[in-house]
């Protein structure tokens, strides 16, 4: 039960990052079709971020605290929970809102992005930062998983 959930959380997060990268690339051009696709990509990215929040949140509250956290804390890399996971679970809360800012920004700027380069640059800042922070969360997730795996290896050996 727990593995599909964490896999779903990670996959949705990675899909979200991919959507924001896609939007970033589309914004290099000011053509109507590029702007339309950039907006669609951001909308999908926001949906994936909220879905990742739900999947990860359910896993965290229902399984992580009772089944994973104590094992990591007893393992060779307790900082994987004490520093990395604690930071990840809170910084993650920024992301859906930064995603909403990026989506709202692109809705407001609308067709202005086709001829105003500054508007496109602002949108690129917004979507690019969400992509980078989301990728950072994936890296933190890798560290937490590594901490858990190392703890399990210690128990097994």
């Amino acid at each position, binding site marked *: 039960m727990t593995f599909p959930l964490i896999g779903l959380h990670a996959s949705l997060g990675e899909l979200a990052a991919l959507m924001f990268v896609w939007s970033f690339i589309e914004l290099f051009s000011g053509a109507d079709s590029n702007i339309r696709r950039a907006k669609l990509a951001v909308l999908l990215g926001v949906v994936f971020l909220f879905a990742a929040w739900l999947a990860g949140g359910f896993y965290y*509250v229902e399984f992580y605290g009772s089944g994973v956290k104590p094992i990591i804390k007893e393992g060779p890399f307790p900082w994987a929970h004490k520093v990395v996971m604690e*930071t990840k679970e*809170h910084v993650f809360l*920024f992301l859906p809102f930064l995603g909403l800012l990026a989506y*709202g920004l692109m809705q*407001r700027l609308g067709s202005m992005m086709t001829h105003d380069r500054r508007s496109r640059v*602002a949108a690129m800042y917004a979507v690019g*930062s969400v992509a980078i*922070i989301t990728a950072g969360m994936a890296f933190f997730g890798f560290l937490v998983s590594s901490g858990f795996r190392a703890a399990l290896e210690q128990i097994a050996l």
Partner: protein
Amino acid sequence: MNRFSIKALAYACHAVIWFVAIITIAAELAEPVKGFLAGLTGHHWTAKGIISLVIFFTVAFIFAKKKDPGDVTGLIRGVLISAVLGAITIFVFYLLINS
């Protein structure tokens, strides 16, 4: 989302980022704060998320009609700086209390 000015969404992001950073530190340093949050929804992290949603939309509604500047890059850059500083604050806090 079209009803909100970009300024309103930027202010809402600032509010959420600093709410999360401050409540996270407060909850670690004062057990009653963590207990209060857990009492709201059953888990302190869930409460932080739900309160963040309420804060975001409350602030966005309050400033919804605020006029946006011609160039919004500064607003977005400000939010990014806030996000990076908020993340560093949380990371350094956990580093310090565990060292």
